[in-house]
């Protein structure tokens, strides 16, 4: 309707322009209001934030409307829309390519800016809050600029086009496409808020704990979404892509992992700042790094500089993102350098055998991990820029470095929960670690009895058992003391998250080391066996509709239920996409793929069978992490703001403390 009238595009673009203006004026109102100490001007910022948010929503709705009504007057719809795509995948096609995903990022960002403006409307006269809000407006302005300029989703397309190819076939296979990108984006964009408050704190010099406490829950919320988004991505890779793995160290996956690494270090290290007012430079740097890495990740994956499964298309968005990244990093470095003195904490870490010491070691370990992942991702670029030749840095590099780092992380998870603050004696440690250590030995014994091999996986199992023991010990003690309240709160929720992480690590170790695979040529009615299971080809199933023709084979496992791996051929893209079929149980997954070429007339089919131990533990671990994160967000023991546990800030020039 609007499309026929040709105004769908201009309406969307109008929304974006209004949003751009709203973000600009919001920034101006914050700055001028602070300068002139004019409360009325500051209060205008809430109006502008609302305006920007409404515009972003309007633009997104306009895009979805154009997609749903197949408005082919827009270039973007010509790229990813199609009359034959089912409704669900058509809806999600909006974020299947560059311009639409920037629009989704913008939607999240504008809504969050409005939320910050609304939530702190009573405190907007506080320069810290006003500066934070101004920072958010600047970020929103940048992303609005992207959608007006290089990544315009409402650009008009060639006239006379009546149908399109639809989104990438890999994005039309599974309902996860509805959840994984939005959840991931909420995680990415969510870190803008703690970053904005960090900038506010640096600029105003109010580096005490107040700004940190305000945004603690928000940082945890974003981290939780980012974690869950990454786990969902792994699940998608497993269920949809058909190569039987969950993580390929693909540049886009690395781009999502990098902010997760620094974000995880941050949410741990922040506890030291709350408790003892230390590690402030670390925390600010980690927060700045996390936000910068989300921008850098967007740059690496959208500028076409690297190609991967997710990379969309080449566009001149690269210079914009790189410039914004540069500005963020330079401004943050200058601010941290300038305020460096005020960040000096009065305390020192008394002993490495203390919780602060463990968290500091944790920071260092995670920073090294982030460095390794970043280096591996950009090293091919560096080599090409300097020596003009192409190399690849792939899985073996990352796996061989990440595995020892992961093992050290597991070790930290074993001892950190039992370490007291300030100092620990060996007697105390040996008391507290005793039963957890035996859990580790038990886990190792079970693994060896079941026939496990290899030093690295065995170490993983042993340390995993040990760390689980340490986490359970904490939970048992807490529930004994506080009943159900022993499961909520930062420490206890965190232990549940740790158990989830341990389950994932153990599952990864097991499936990476002990997967058995075989290619079987099945003749109809003749069972073949592998790995203790029999596989029988029951028949072929062919389906076709407007957008794809599929051929599936019916394979009965152990004479029971049938599983149907398939190959789909998408008519508009000429691409073949394989879909696996998985039989899951707690001990292992039997993963089937259909191998081309398939000849239904010949009564024979080639399938590939993977027997992957403990995969279900990975997804269970992911769910535990989600549950643990939610439980962490609940207040544990009630902390009052004047609780002496928070160290007062000795501001160098004033006598006040926060």
């Amino acid at each position, binding site marked *: 309707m609007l499309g026929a009238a040709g105004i769908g595009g201009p309406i969307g673009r109008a929304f974006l322009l209004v949003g751009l203006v709203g973000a600009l004026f919001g920034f101006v109102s914050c700055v001028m209001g602070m300068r002139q100490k004019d409360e009325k001007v500051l209060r205008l910022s809430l109006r502008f934030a609302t305006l920007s948010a409404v515009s972003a929503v309007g633009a997104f709705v306009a895009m979805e409307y154009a997609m749903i009504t197949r408005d082919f007057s827009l270039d973007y719809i010509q790229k990813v829309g199609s009359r034959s795509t089912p409704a669900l995948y058509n809806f999600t096609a909006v974020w299947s390519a560059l311009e639409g995903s920037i629009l989704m990022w913008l939607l999240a960002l504008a809504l969050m800016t409005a939320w910050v403006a609304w939530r702190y409307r009573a405190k907007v006269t506080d320069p810290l809050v006003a500066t934070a809000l101004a920072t958010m407006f600047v970020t929103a302005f940048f992303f609005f600029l992207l959608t007006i300029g290089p990544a315009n989703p409402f650009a008009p397309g060639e006239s006379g086009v009546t149908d399109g190819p639809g989104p990438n076939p890999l994005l039309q296979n599974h309902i996860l496409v509805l959840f994984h990108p939005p959840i991931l984006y909420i995680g990415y964009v969510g870190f803008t808020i703690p970053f904005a408050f960090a900038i506010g704190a640096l600029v105003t010099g109010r580096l005490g704990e107040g700004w940190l406490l305000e945004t603690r829950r928000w940082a945890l919320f974003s981290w939780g979404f980012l974690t869950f988004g990454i786990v969902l991505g792994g699940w998608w890779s497993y269920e949809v892509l058909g190569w039987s793995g969950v993580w390929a160290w693909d540049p886009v996956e690395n781009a999502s992992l990098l902010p997760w690494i620094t974000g995880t270090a941050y949410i741990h290290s922040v506890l030291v700042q709350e408790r003892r007012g230390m590690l402030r430079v670390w925390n600010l740097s980690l927060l700045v790094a996390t936000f910068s890495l989300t921008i850098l990740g967007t740059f690496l994956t959208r500028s076409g500089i690297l190609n991967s499964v997710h990379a969309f298309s080449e566009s001149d968005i690269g210079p914009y993102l790189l410039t914004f990244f540069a500005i963020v*990093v330079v401004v943050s470095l200058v601010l941290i*350098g300038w305020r*460096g003195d005020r960040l000096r904490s009065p305390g020192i870490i008394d002993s490495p055998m203390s919780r602060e010491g463990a968290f500091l070691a944790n920071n260092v370990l995670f920073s090294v991990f982030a460095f390794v992942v970043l280096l591996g991702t*950009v090293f091919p670029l*560096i080599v*090409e*820029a300097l020596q003009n030749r192409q190399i690849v840095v792939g899985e073996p590099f990352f796996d061989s470095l990440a595995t020892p780092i992961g093992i050290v992380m597991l070790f930290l998870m074993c001892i950190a929960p039992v370490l007291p603050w300030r100092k620990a004696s060996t007697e105390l440690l040996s008391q507290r670690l005793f039963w957890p250590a035996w859990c580790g030995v038990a886990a190792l014994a079970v693994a060896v009895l079941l026939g496990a091999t290899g030093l690295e996986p065995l170490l993983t199992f042993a340390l995993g058992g040990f760390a689980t023991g340490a986490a359970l010990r904490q939970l048992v003690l807490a529930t004994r003391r506080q009943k159900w309240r022993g499961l909520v709160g930062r420490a206890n929720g965190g232990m549940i998250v740790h158990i989830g992480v341990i389950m994932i690590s153990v599952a990864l170790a097991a499936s990476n080391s002990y997967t058995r695979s075989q290619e079987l040529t099945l003749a109809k009615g003749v069972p073949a066996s592998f790995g203790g299971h029999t596989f029988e080809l029951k028949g072929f199933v062919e389906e076709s509709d407007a957008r794809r023709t599929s051929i599936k084979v019916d394979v009965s496992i152990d004479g029971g239920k049938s599983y149907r791996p398939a190959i789909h051929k998408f008519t508009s893209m000429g691409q073949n996409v394989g879909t696996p079929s998985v039989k899951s149980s707690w001990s292992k997954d039997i993963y089937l793929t259909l191998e081309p070429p398939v000849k239904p007339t010949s009564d024979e089919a080639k399938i590939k069978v993977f027997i992957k131990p403990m995969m279900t533990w990975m997804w269970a671990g992911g769910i535990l992490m989600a549950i643990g994160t939610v439980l962490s967000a609940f207040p544990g023991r009630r902390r009052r703001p004047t609780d002496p546990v928070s160290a007062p800030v000795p501001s160098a020039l004033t006598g006040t403390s926060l």
Partner: protein
Amino acid sequence: MNDRENLAVVNVASVARSRRSSLIAAAVGVVVALFFVVLVVSSPEDRETAASPLLGNPAPVVKSTTLDNAQFDLSRRRGSWVMFNFFNSTCVPCRQEHPELVAFHEAQTSVATPTELYSIINDDSDNAVRAFFDANNGDWPKVRDDDGSIAVAFGVAKVPETWIIDPNGFVRMRFIGAVTKDLLTEKVTELQAAFEGM
């Protein structure tokens, strides 16, 4: 020492500490700046070269059937110049260069030493290929490469690619990407002249 001197000592100590931290900040800044330079310099263009370890060496064994179910064996083409064009009917540059190949092939009928042109087809359906050639001319043999062994033997990852093999069975030239009739004619003439001169 009086108070002012003591304060000076304390100040020097804290300046030393903050100098160290600004050194660290500067170091981080330099690393990040270098990083920018690298990223700014690198570009998303296609990066391919026409080198190959096969150049100047005997061509790999190529034994297969054509779409018309005739046998094809490269070793039996000794004595003629052979041109392989790696092709796929869904590949856009292949379709774009096709008229150039047709023109080149037609010109071979009036040339002293004609070059035999063969298309190597991998990961494509017979019907699609036949339909394409029916609609766009081109009556040279199309060699099947169903398992990709010919593509791997030549190290061909992306189509289109065009290779020239001399009458002794040695690989002489590799073109990555779409070609034109003029380019092919020019290069073939050069190679033939060099070959005669040997």
